[in-house]
């Protein structure tokens, strides 16, 4: 393989198509990721609380929900959401992008709920007992005593989930949703310069994930010292 030519091609692709990678691709990827993780986190809190519910039936369904989502490939879930759900629930006349975003959000919620649950369970049981014995309700205990302590473990894990999801959104390119991997797919489809486009795409993903993982690391260090 001619490395010089590869480099020349990379420069050519970048000069001609940087906006396709950066403007459309990166923006869509970030949008999808934020959507998936932020809404996934909100949904994840609900799922985590339900998972710790006293009702066996609720726990059964929530456990099934979590296990099914964590036990099947994301691509499969995307396919189901994209092809099946819009027809089952035609009331929600969302476009493809939104269905994919919802699928990612639901996927994320299962992982986030486990992050929350393990974060909450990492707080010593004695803290809950102390708060309850003082006469605080279970809600007050969760909000004032358990959550503030759990958040130390939860936030870095959420940061890592964000980084994971940023990469996972690439699967949405199956539907040419416009994310960074879609940018790669359309550029390589038009130019047949696959390696060159892959290198550019990989570099951009890295430019997004590396600072994020450094940020998470710094936060973790700060929390440890706090």
């Amino acid at each position, binding site marked *: *393989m*001619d490395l010089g*030519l590869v480099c020349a091609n990379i420069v050519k692709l970048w000069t*001609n*198509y940087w906006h*396709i990678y950066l403007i*459309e691709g990166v923006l869509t990827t970030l*949008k999808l990721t934020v*959507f998936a993780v932020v*809404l996934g986190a*909100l*949904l994840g809190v*609900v799922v985590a609380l339900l998972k710790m519910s006293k009702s066996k039936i609720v726990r059964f369904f929530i456990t099934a929900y979590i296990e099914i989502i964590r036990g099947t490939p994301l691509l499969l879930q995307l*396919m189901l959401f*994209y*092809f*099946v759900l*819009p*027809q089952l629930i035609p009331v929600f*006349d*969302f*476009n*493809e*992008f*939104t*269905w994919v*975003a*919802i699928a990612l*959000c639901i996927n994320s919620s299962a992982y986030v709920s486990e992050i929350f649950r393990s974060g909450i369970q990492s707080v010593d049981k004695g803290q809950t007992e102390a708060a309850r014995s003082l006469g605080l309700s279970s809600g007050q205990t969760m909000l004032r005593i358990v959550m503030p302590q759990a958040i130390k473990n939860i936030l870095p894990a959420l940061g890592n989930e964000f980084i994971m999801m940023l990469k996972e959104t690439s699967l949405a*390119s*199956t*539907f*040419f949703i416009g994310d960074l991997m879609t940018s790669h*797919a*359309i*550029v*390589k*489809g*038009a*130019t*047949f*310069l*696959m*390696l060159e486009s892959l290198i550019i795409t990989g570099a951009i993903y890295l430019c997004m994930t590396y600072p994020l993982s450094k940020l998470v690391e710094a936060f973790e260090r700060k929390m440890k010292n706090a």
Partner: protein
Amino acid sequence: MKKLLALALTLALSLSMAACGSSEPAASGEPAKETLKVAISPDFAPMEFVDLSKTGQDQYVGFDVSLAKYIAAEMGKELEICPMSFDACQVAVSTGKVDMSISGFSYTPERAENYNLSDYYYAGDNETEQTVIALKENAAKFTSAESFAGVKVGAQTASLQEALVNDQLVPLGAELVIFSDINTGVLQLKKGDFEAIAVATGNGDAIAANNPEIAVTDFTFEVDEAAENNLILLKKGADELTEQVNQILAKAYDAGLYGEWYAEAEELAGIDTAADVSYDEDGNVAQ
């Protein structure tokens, strides 16, 4: 909980962009037409690919896209291209997500069993003609089937080309190497995993146009007319629509449109950005 749902929906709607799921009426105030949803896998120049200088529905170009536009116009419907991977295209048809898929499908018995298939359409000599591409310095070597003795030849899995290599080159001493998609194949060719790739000539031209170290050889396979032509994938049992499509295909053939579309597609694929010539939905030169 309600607030959460409301927030989710607001966010979801704010993300909405015009795509094949949404049925927003046309902006110009004309009465909303029924839409014809067509799945394509736009990563295969010159049959279907993305014009990188454009966005939205306009960005999808190529022979199959021209055909899709023509079919929609004949039916009096608004065309909506639903881009997705080649595998997903088939699922989209079988689940009824789209009305049909026009994405360079060829005939296989399994497809015939699970889908309605249209009549063949003819993309042009360049799509019918099957050749091999090779690195420029090797291209002159390959002139006849005999010249592939002891040579590794790549072909996309489950493709017409795979069958051609198997039938015509392997008996003469060539070795078949399979790859999953054409871009990977091109990469492997450059890396030296094999010396040649069997491709449709039009596809080979597009590859060579962007990869100066690759050339199309003079060798051509012998092909059976019926086998290599493309067809449109429709949902099993959609007989009425299939019949309608077949009539439109016949009309396009009689009007001699195939060659015209193909020439346009090749031109778009050959020049990288295609910034100078592009067509809007009515077939007029835009920009």
